[in-house]
């Protein structure tokens, strides 16, 4: 398996390491993400309460750092906590942060392999 950051962050993780979206303690939405791409898609679709719940708990940054091993993205997500965003405002910001990072990593990945 490759060790470059782009490959790790863009790859798929096993089911047991996927991110599972909850709206509150113990209430699972049925949505999960096993890659950064899937995570980006779920941010678009999941109930905004789930985004609020996980951002407040620091779950997103923890998963991104521990599982995807992307410290930069984890830092960017953690910064969003300061803005006290709710609902679609949070969704839009989170989507922008993740999507920007995904595009950058994808570009890095393709240049490394070309």
């Amino acid at each position, binding site marked *: 398996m490759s060790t470059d950051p782009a490959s790790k962050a863009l790859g798929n993780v096993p089911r047991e390491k996927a991110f599972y979206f909850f709206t509150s*303690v113990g*209430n*699972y939405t049925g949505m999960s993400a096993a890659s950064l791409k899937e995570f980006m898609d779920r941010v678009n679709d999941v109930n905004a309460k789930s985004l609020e719940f996980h951002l407040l708990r620091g779950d997103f940054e923890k998963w991104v750092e521990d599982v995807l091993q992307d410290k930069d993205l984890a830092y960017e997500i953690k910064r969003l906590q300061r803005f006290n965003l709710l609902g679609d405002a949070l969704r839009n910001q989170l989507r922008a942060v993740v999507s920007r990072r995904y595009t950058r990593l994808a570009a890095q990945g393709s240049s490394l392999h070309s």
Partner: protein
Amino acid sequence: MKFKNNAVSLDDVDLKILQALQEDSRQTFTALGESLGLAHSTVYDRIRRMEEQKVIKNYTALVDAERIGLKTITAMVTVYTEPKETERVAEKLAESPEVLEVYTSLSEELLIIAKIVAASQESLHDFIANSIAPLPGVLRIRTSIVTKKLKETLFSINNGSKGLRL
């Protein structure tokens, strides 16, 4: 009291012994015999037979966790699954020590109901997120944290004489 056809047959003496044991399972055969007007050998034989027939499943201690400083939270968790995975998910849940009871139910849709105990909301969430949600076939999960317990008991043989239809 009515019993299903394939059930073990019990007479009034057996039922009286069971009632007495459910009130205090530590009573001696002699004490039980005296209170019920039976010879202690009769009590012994009846209890032994009911143990062998698994009518009496075990003798257990009900521990009051709060009295020994154990603070726990209890949650009733409903797990919605793909129908073909329900049994497998329920069996997997039943293996976990955190899960006290597991039931499957067919109401509007097939689901699993489980009673879960945890040290804190955080550990409850971790257990559900890491051990239940990833199980194949789990569609969604609804969790209700118990805030007040009004009654908790095991099935009592006394219910038969108090209107519960068996």
